[in-house]
């Protein structure tokens, strides 16, 4: 398998990387090591750490940061941006539809059972249209590249995509350490993200809110692995970071407990899962949420972002139908294609998958974080056999995709620069407007040859540049 190297292609340096070539040449190994140590110290001082689910070990571990940036031209970005916005619109239209009249199901464009029997479908949302018809206010769309003009959407994240703090911090640290680079290259800024996020959330304030809406971020608490990101965003947005215990319902509204007495809350950017939001409506044993929250929400006293049940749009089995959503709701052709996907729940697809397991990547429909996944070309015969049994036991729960030739970007390793595989997660904001900052989070698989970029699986991050014209 050959891989597209985003910097060196056909024996030449591709134009967006032209200036970086000289930069790395001029950087001796000692300086590089010094800078790397400086970057790490900066991250630690700021407090950015990432605890990995279920791995134990050091809760203050850092996500490895690679100093070599990933670069897009303005043209490349414009296409990505149009494709991402189109997708974010279609996903929201789909959510409004399936919790409303379900036209797309009635039209036979997506099987009803995939939607209505899906674990992520929330009957408690049926018949409700959230403010401005937005269910998913921050859509994280994972994109992979296989060639100069070949971009594919790998998956959608409509609930609470994480990682945006790394996008912001990576940039901050690069600008502090290499100011000259930012003078030589004209790089689009990303630092307006928190303010745009705040504006997006304020724009979906509920009907009963008069005046400037009060926005808060709801976190499961400081033991959560993404707590740093929650507090970082709250700080940059200038809003309170609350836990469920800080909020309570009285009458038609939600209030937060402050030292000056109760203060009404209008928009809750929640970073806790649907099931924990309200013990009266969802899991009764949950202590993380706010009793009575859903009644206030549905009667227009508060807005939840994202809306409960938004996950039915980013389910891996539903993913296959997103291009169809684009056509159905927007009457457009998808700008960014899906990765070809086989659904093991369908008989012909299953046969194909079982026959080609060593070449395919098989994913659990409800899995995330790179767990519960088979990478055929890297798996042993025994692992493949074991996974075959799992698929056969519950075919509906698996999809398969070809092993993608993920593009590479030069990355600093012990011996100098070496190509490593990357993906991209931009964050699209959906409120009064649909917008995104020029950039995103580039994740890089640091192990040689590895195609798994998840931070829980040894992935790192890079600063992502979009060059101005």
């Amino acid at each position, binding site marked *: 398998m050959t891989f597209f190297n985003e910097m060196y292609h056909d024996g030449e340096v591709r134009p967006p990387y032209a200036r970086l070539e000289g930069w790395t040449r001029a950087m001796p190994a000692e300086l590089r090591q010094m800078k790397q140590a400086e970057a790490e110290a900066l991250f630690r001082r700021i407090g950015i750490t990432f605890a990995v689910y279920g791995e134990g070990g050091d809760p203050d571990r850092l996500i490895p940061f690679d100093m070599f940036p990933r670069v897009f031209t303005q043209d490349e970005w414009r296409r990505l941006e149009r494709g991402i916005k189109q997708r974010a619109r279609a996903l929201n239209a789909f959510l409004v539809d399936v919790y409303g009249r379900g036209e797309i199901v009635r039209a036979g464009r997506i099987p009803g059972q995939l939607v209505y029997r899906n674990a992520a479908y929330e009957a408690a949302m049926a018949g409700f249209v959230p403010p401005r018809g937005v269910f998913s206010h921050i859509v994280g769309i994972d994109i992979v590249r296989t060639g100069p003009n070949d971009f594919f959407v790998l998956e959608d994240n409509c609930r609470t995509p994480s990682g945006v703090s790394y996008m912001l911090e990576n940039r901050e640290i690069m600008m502090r350490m290499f100011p000259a680079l930012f003078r030589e290259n004209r790089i689009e800024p990303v630092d307006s993200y928190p303010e745009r996020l705040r504006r997006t959330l304020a724009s979906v304030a509920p009907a009963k809110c008069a005046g400037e809406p009060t926005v808060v971020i709801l976190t499961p608490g400081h033991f959560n692995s993404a707590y740093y990101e929650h507090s970082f965003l709250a700080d940059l947005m200038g809003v309170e970071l609350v836990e469920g215990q800080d909020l309570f319902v*009285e009458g038609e509204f939600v209030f937060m407990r402050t030292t000056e007495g109760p203060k009404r809350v209008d928009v809750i950017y929640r970073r806790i899962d649907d099931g924990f939001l309200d013990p009266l409506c969802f899991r009764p044993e949950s202590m993380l949420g706010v*009793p*009575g929250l859903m*009644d206030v929400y*549905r009667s227009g006293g508060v807005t939840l972002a994202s809306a409960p049940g938004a996950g039915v749009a980013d389910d891996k089995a539903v993913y296959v139908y997103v291009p169809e959503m684009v056509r159905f709701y927007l009457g457009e052709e998808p700008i960014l294609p899906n990765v070809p996907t086989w659904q093991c729940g369908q008989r012909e697809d299953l046969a194909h998958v079982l026959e080609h397991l060593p070449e395919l990547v098989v994913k659990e429909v409800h899995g995330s974080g790179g767990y519960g996944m088979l990478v055929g070309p890297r798996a042993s015969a025994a692992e493949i056999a074991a996974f075959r049994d799992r698929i056969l036991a519950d075919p509906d729960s698996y999809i398969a995709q070809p092993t993608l030739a993920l593009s590479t970007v030069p990355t600093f390793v012990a011996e100098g620069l070496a190509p490593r595989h990357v993906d991209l997660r931009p964050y699209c904001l959906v409120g009064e407007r649909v917008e995104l900052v020029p950039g995103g989070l580039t994740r890089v698989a640091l192990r040689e040859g590895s195609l798994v970029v998840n931070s829980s699986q040894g992935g790192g991050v890079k600063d992502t540049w979009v060059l101005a014209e």
Partner: protein
Amino acid sequence: MILSVQHRTTYRYDRPVRGVVQSHRLTPSVFDGQRTLGWQVGLSEGIRGGGFRDGAGDWVQGWSVRGPVGEIVVLVQGTVETADLSGVLRGHREAIPPEAYLRETATTRADRALAELGLEAAAGLADALAAAHRMCEAVAGAIVWRPGATQAATTAAEALARGEGVCQDHAHALIAVARSRGVPARYVTGYLFAAPGEGPQEAAHAWAELWVQGLGWVGFDPANRCCPDARYIRIGSGLDARGAAPIRGIARGNGAEHLDVDVAVQAVQQ
């Protein structure tokens, strides 16, 4: 028929609690089989919260009580004019498609015995309505009505294994059997007027609705071996008893809670 309802639920706390939040589904459904003549729901010292009609067509009303409080009372009073539609839920508006009622829950999961019960009752029957009646009869025959035999958390499978239960168990079992046959089914709560000495005396009652192609939702009450008629007042529905619970609530505090329920349904002389 004109039925009047008086339904009082009292919560007492060992030690005063700092506050209470409740969510009520206590208002009669709107459909061709019943017309509400007057209806009031009150919560002692309660602050009325937001209300809305949910995807299943039920009116949901939020409430909160500011503590400290040692006792609260939910009082439901009203009068409804009912008609016998042979269980058919005609003219009811809702947003959740029947397909969503094929999802199983912990209390309505069909084990092998429930699935077999469904198979024996309905296998080979092309007529969906006839099959639904047969399933209802099968459940009624397999579970004897016996108050106190089961608890709120008893599953359909457990009730069938015991062979006895109350209306909640009958409804759960019928739902499990129907879903195992690919028939959407749901739990319905309401009130039942029963003349003295006439069958199970459960004024706060529950039954099941099954989706019958061509008719829509149709009620079946295995506890009384019939379809809901003019003696029934329909209130709300859900995937199971927990999902359809007329009162859900949480008190902030650590006093133990004692519950006391008193329901009376009477026929109004015309």
